[in-house]
């Protein structure tokens, strides 16, 4: 018994009435460091022990309020600042659709917080090396008996007095509980290096597994199914066709949708004779031509076809469109030049549709007439 230290004197009681009476009597006798053990909560004991209502609820309140603040703040920042997403033209943060998440986070945080505070702070759990564990006393109060004990560190503790008090209260099986100072520690176990190390390992494993899953695993087969598909990309090698070309040549005689043959290539005079502007000289068509002219022609030919372009000599200025030569050209001739290009001017066949080319010609004719107006035009 040398390294054994007295922890407490325990007594077993048979009925709920007697334990309640014992609790009150021990409290009345002035003891502070005592406890009552019952296999289930017995009504009236907390009151007999002089305990006031548990303050646990205040922690819950704090956790709950932080849950509300956290959820609202989190969703507010994301929907307003980080990732504003228009939903049916509604304000980014209309309160009602954010209530469900706020409620759930509040419940989650306050429930978890309450339980953790209770277990760690109030009960100082986990603690499996308490002196009471594995004693006969514990085995009894764990099942069908009621127990009371007074601890040796109570200021009024006196082993014989306590024994006689318990005896007078009707206790049976009065027992002294000793503990070994080396093996039993009453300090909370949460701050032990072993537990902290366990927490650290758990954090590392969780973080590592998350990183691996989200950043590595999802980019490995078979989880990259959608990224790598068994289709042939443009300009890639194909093992299927004998010529190894991923892109196929169309069968001979295929023409593209909307294709129109242009049989005057290299023969501008014939084009000038044969082609007739299909568009009529209306306000709308001229407006259409103006738009296209401003986009495609004006950079070189200038807004009004003078050839004094915005390029300011960085590129050879084209001749004016108002020369007698150009004014005498037929529409078909101009169409040929837009289509095939001339001198430094490239072909615009791929950029300006056929209809737009004819519309541009209408506009050029309008410009020519406007710049070289005859006196009778004023009427």
């Amino acid at each position: 018994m040398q390294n054994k230290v007295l922890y407490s004197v325990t007594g077993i009681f048979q009925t709920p009435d007697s334990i309640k009476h014992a609790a009150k009597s021990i409290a009345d006798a002035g003891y502070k460091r005592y406890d009552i053990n019952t296999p289930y909560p017995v009504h009236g004991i907390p009151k007999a022990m002089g305990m006031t209502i548990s303050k646990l609820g205040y922690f819950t309140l704090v956790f709950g309020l932080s849950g509300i603040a956290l959820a609202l703040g989190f969703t507010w920042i994301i929907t307003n600042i980080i990732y504003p997403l228009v939903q049916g033209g509604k304000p980014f943060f209309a309160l009602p659709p954010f209530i469900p998440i706020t409620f759930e986070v509040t419940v989650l945080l306050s429930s978890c917080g309450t339980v953790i505070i209770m277990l760690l702070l109030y009960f100082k759990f986990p603690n499996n090396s308490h002196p009471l564990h594995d004693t006969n006393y514990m085995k009894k109060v764990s099942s069908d008996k009621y127990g009371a004990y007074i601890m040796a560190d109570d200021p009024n503790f006196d082993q014989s007095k306590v024994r006689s008090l318990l005896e007078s209260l009707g206790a049976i099986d009065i027992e002294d509980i000793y503990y070994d100072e080396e093996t039993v520690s009453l300090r909370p176990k949460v701050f032990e290096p072993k537990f902290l190390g366990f927490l650290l390992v758990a954090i590392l494993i969780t973080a590592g597994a998350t990183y691996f899953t989200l950043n590595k695993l999802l980019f490995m087969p078979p989880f990259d199914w959608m990224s790598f598909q068994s289709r042939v990309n443009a300009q890639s090698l194909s093992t299927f066709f004998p010529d190894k070309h991923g892109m196929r040549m169309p069968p001979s005689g295929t023409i593209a949708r909307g294709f129109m043959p242009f049989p005057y290539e290299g023969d501008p005079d014939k084009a000038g004779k044969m082609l007739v502007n299909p568009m009529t000289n209306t306000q709308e068509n001229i407006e259409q031509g103006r738009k296209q002219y401003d986009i495609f022609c004006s950079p070189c030919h200038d807004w009004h076809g003078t050839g004094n372009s915005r390029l300011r000599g960085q590129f050879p200025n084209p001749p004016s469109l108002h020369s007698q030569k150009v004014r005498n050209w037929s529409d078909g001739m101009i169409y040929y030049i837009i289509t095939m290009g001339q001198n430094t001017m490239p072909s615009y066949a791929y950029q300006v549709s056929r209809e737009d080319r004819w519309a541009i010609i209408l506009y050029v004719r309008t410009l020519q007439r406007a710049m070289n107006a005859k006196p009778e035009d004023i009427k």
Partner: protein
Amino acid sequence: MSIDYSLEPSIIEGKPGLASIDSTIAAPMETRPNKNFYMALSVTLTMLGIGAVCLGYSFYYGMGLWGNNNPVGWGFDIVNFVFWIGIGHAGTLISAILFLFRQKWRTGISRFAEGMTIFAVMTAGIFPLIHVGRPWLDGYLMPYPNQHGLWVNFTSPLVWDVFAVSTYFIVSAIFWYIGLIPDLATLRDRTVDKIRKTIYSIFSLGWRHSNRHWHHYEMSYIILAGFATPLVLSVHTIVSFDFAVSILPGWHSTIFPPYFVAGAVFSGFAMVQNALIFVRKIFNYEHIITLDTLEKMNKIMIATGSMVGYAYAMEFFIAWYSGSPLETFVFVNRAFGDYAWAYWIMVSCNVIFPQLFWFKKIRRSIPLMFVVGVFVNIGMWFERFVIVVTSLSRDFLPSSWAYYKPTLYDIGILIGSFGLFFSLLLIFTRTLPVVSIAEVKAVSDGAQPTHHAGGSHAE
């Protein structure tokens, strides 16, 4: 027979001693399971295996194996999800709401029902995860900072679901575990086996049945019950928002939240009652889970069943009263269209059969209540089927109407979900106390001091 209603009947019959409560409840954990247990487990594990195979095929070949088609994008997957979440609701109702109402008869069944809640939510949780088609990307459901700079849409009910179901699972698990701590401590002090003792010691965290602890413990229990009560209502409300927030006729309805919650409690109670009938018989808990308790559960079933019936009627009334031709069409189509068979299975199982519980004889007859409970679960499964499938298969555009037919894989996964749920339940009955030892002791006769007021009598 005259009954003296001034006396509260005993919750626990036969006045067992506290020690005998211990040994009765601990017996399944301390004895080896018999052949029947292994036979039952092999059946449920086979069902689980069928589901796992079907799921594996679905993952490998894609969701084209399922019956989901173009207008009916939500098929068995969502039906099963809503069904299993609903099953879970009875557990929380019994453990939290009835606790707040001081219904002592809940003590015998609460632990088991809470366990069912957890297993049902686990089963349910699988379905939205596999429903997304590429379940390995489910992590994106959680709002976390990622390299894509993407965030979830917090105004979507589908995201609310993620929050609601995960919160529900965590809070239910905590509630369950807090209830288990004193029982695990009791088991720790009973057992002589070293391995068991270590396990029980770890999980009982060193509980000492101290009244300084019980004091806070009871407060935490009230707080948790207070949170679990609105939580359980919110979960099925949010599940119903998945439907109600859409604009589909037949879904777009404000009656959905209360109607879904009532339906969830209804089916959950039927499932708990069915399972408890076996548990009380097999483990000799007939004096703890009494016939009176089962009768009270049947009464709750008739109440919630009538609420569900009222909701069915009210949906039709509103379809007519609103004057909306689309609504009217949807409901006439439900009752008389392609899926009339499912609709009438639902109505007869959910509204008509539970009305038999008005008769006391049926309410107290174990075989009959079992049959009605099975019917209720079939009916409630079909309720979700009717809601999900009929509305979708006849949407706004007649040219895209199509008939939904589940494939073998759908059915296999449904079987697998039952396999998972019952496997977990069977393992639970053999590894943890399915009845709360401490709570049952607290309500047994003579367990509380004779004078509740305390201190007023001569000391």
